């Protein structure tokens, strides 16, 4: 790692000279480690789903042909979430280039697409519940609502944090040399997006 003087100029690295860290600033390292924990959380849920589905395929009979799920709507929603990852990348690139205006717009777009995703999911839930497909509806209902619900909860948290970061960006708190918040929320955002791609595949498509 660079010597103390060089590190001192980089505001994104830990404040005082350090022996030999990971070479990344604390918030980024912390987020990566935290995401490790999130992987385990979703693994528990997905593992539960896989085990129950293999053990009782009859609970999913006819799926996806006779499924109560509206797959086209969710497919569009999935596309939206992937788009929000793209806008997130654009926001981070703008932060690195120090272009404040693009940073604000791309962050705003990301937060809004994320909120739309959550909105569509709420719409999907209300329709499913109206149709009588409720969480107590056998193993399919149990696993469906738990997995998609906890993903939706993560997106909601992400939207709240993204809103906070966006407000900070509008106040000009991120510079070309220090845009930790943008990168860290970006890591979380991409992770949640990735989880959705897995969930969409195994819950809706397979």
């Amino acid at each position, binding site marked *: 790692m660079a010597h103390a003087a060089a590190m001192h100029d980089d505001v994104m690295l830990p404040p005082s000279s*350090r022996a030999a860290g990971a070479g990344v600033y604390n*918030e980024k390292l912390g987020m990566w480690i935290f995401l490790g924990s999130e992987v385990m959380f979703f693994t528990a849920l997905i593992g539960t789903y896989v085990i129950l589905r293999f053990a009782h395929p009859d609970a999913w009979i006819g799926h996806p042909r006779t499924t109560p799920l509206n797959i086209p709507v969710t497919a569009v929603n999935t596309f939206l979430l992937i788009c929000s990852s793209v806008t997130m990348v654009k926001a981070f690139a703008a932060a690195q280039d120090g272009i404040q205006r693009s940073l604000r717009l791309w962050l705003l777009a990301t937060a809004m697409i994320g909120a739309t995703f959550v909105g569509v999911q709420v719409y999907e839930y209300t329709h499913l519940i109206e149709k009588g497909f409720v969480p107590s509806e056998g193993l399919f209902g149990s696993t469906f609502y738990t997995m998609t619900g906890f993903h939706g909860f993560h997106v909601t948290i992400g939207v709240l944090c993204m809103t906070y970061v966006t407000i900070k960006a509008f106040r000009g708190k991120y510079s070309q040399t220090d845009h930790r918040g943008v990168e860290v929320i970006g890591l979380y955002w991409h992770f949640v997006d990735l989880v959705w791609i897995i969930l969409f595949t195994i819950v809706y498509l397979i």
Partner: protein
Amino acid sequence: MATTATDTSAYTHDHGNAHVDDRPFIRKYIFSTDHKIIGIQFLIMSLTFLLLGGTLAMVMRWQLGFPGKPLPGGTLLPETYTNNGVVLPEFYNSAVTMHGTFMVFFAIMPLLVGVFGNYLIPLKIGAPDMAFPRINMASFWTAVPAGLLMLAGFFVEGGSAAAGWTSYAPLSARSDLTGVHLGQIFWCLSLIILGLSSIMGSFNYITTVINMRAPGMNWFRLPLSIWALFVTACLVLLAIPVLSGAAILLLFDQTIGTHFFDPQAGGQPLLWQHLFWFFGHPEVYILILPAMGMASDIIANGARKPIFGYTSMVLAIISIGFLGWGVWGHHMFQSGMNPTLGTTFMISTLLIAVPSAIKTFNWLGTIWQGNITFHVPMLHALAFVSMFVIGGLSGVFMAASPFDIYIHDTYFIVAHLHYVLFGGSLFAIFAAVTYWYPKMFGRMMNPFWGRVHFWLTLVFYNFTFFPMHQLGLHGHMRRIYDPTQYAFLREMQPVNQFISISAFCLFATQFLFAANFILSWFKGEKAPNNPWLDNGLEWTLPSPPPHGNFATVPTVYRGPYEYSSPHSDLDYIPQNVPTPGGAGAAHPQPAGD
């Protein structure tokens, strides 16, 4: 002491992070972001829960030793708990459940990880604080409501959770089976909230150890306590979310009518056991690794010798951390799981004995021919090693599935887990609390009463738990309200009574520790900076260290175990002292002699 005095005078420059904390009382001591205050907050919280868990154990011991006799003071309890002072089966179930839950999640785990992870990591690696001080504060202030919620179970209709600390489904999932509804919901919610607290703590510790080490503090100069806490934090980070996931599924089964664990609707009770123990076995190492690490520091100090086989100690910690993930099935040999799978788990479990034995022999090697100082922490640390060996060996018995079939769910298991959790973890906690108490509070604990507490605890502890092996081999069930209902257990009742009386004495002895702890806080002798003549960076600071810790960022020149070094007139060389022979020159690592 001369060296230490000069060192401290070097910290009077105003370039570093240490400064007077002039924030108002509430920010300084209640909602504090200082890792030292948070560590002490965790200490007070978890010692309170330790007392509470111990009290519940006394209720159980009364009922097992003297079934049908009124519990002293039992008439003061509500009618749903006792009948004319006699403990009711429902209350006995809750006491068993909550004793386990409090001890594992709210006493031992926060004592090891919450207290010493917080207090020691930044001080020992030379950092001003944790990487994320505010998240650290949030970690403590989510643990408190989690504990209160767990406690609240006692005051709601139906009483607290009563399905055992493992909450096996469907017993825990369906309230019609136990009559406990709200209590079990609180149990799940509390553990989910506590899980958040643990995760916030653990990624903080990991980031801090990776990124915040002082110059010169490379990985192989880290004290073993820090290595152990680091690996433990990794286990917490990856195991706790699985428990949270499982608790969420259980909570949904209880509240919104899902059927994850209900076999009548296609769910799988065994799934709960797999999820729980997939978390539960790494949890076992979460509860012992920090104990091992801190005992290593204290034993090297007490023996005035470098730790024997530093590198092998580190590798043993890491390999225990890895192997701990592949052994959870040994809790489930009798669950109806495929026996072939059981054999696999048996082999992986037996493998863990290897790094554990490496550590044990290294401790013996450290003490061997040492000039041993029997200070109170050293006594506790030596008790830790000996009791851990007994618990470890009975662990090897149980790992062998043919033998486990015989002793499964008997008091043999209870004996084993208390030999590792009380004999192992708790003795190490007593060692660590008495060792770092002067640093935390700036005063010494009374050594005479410390010794009295130690010897009485050691004796009554063994009187309490050793005969449990015998009970278990005799077929005494792990969870039973009244053993005298069976003729074959009735003849063992004198053993049960002996255990109960020893347990009461053991419990009473702990008040000596509590009194010593509280009185020393106010009246103890003022502690010097380095009362144990230790090499760690924390001992170069005043007791207690100032807010922000180090006035100048320390530079580390050596490992933490250079005792009795021929290079120094003193019998120890602090980690921040350059080699006496040539200033700043690299000094060889104190690897195994």
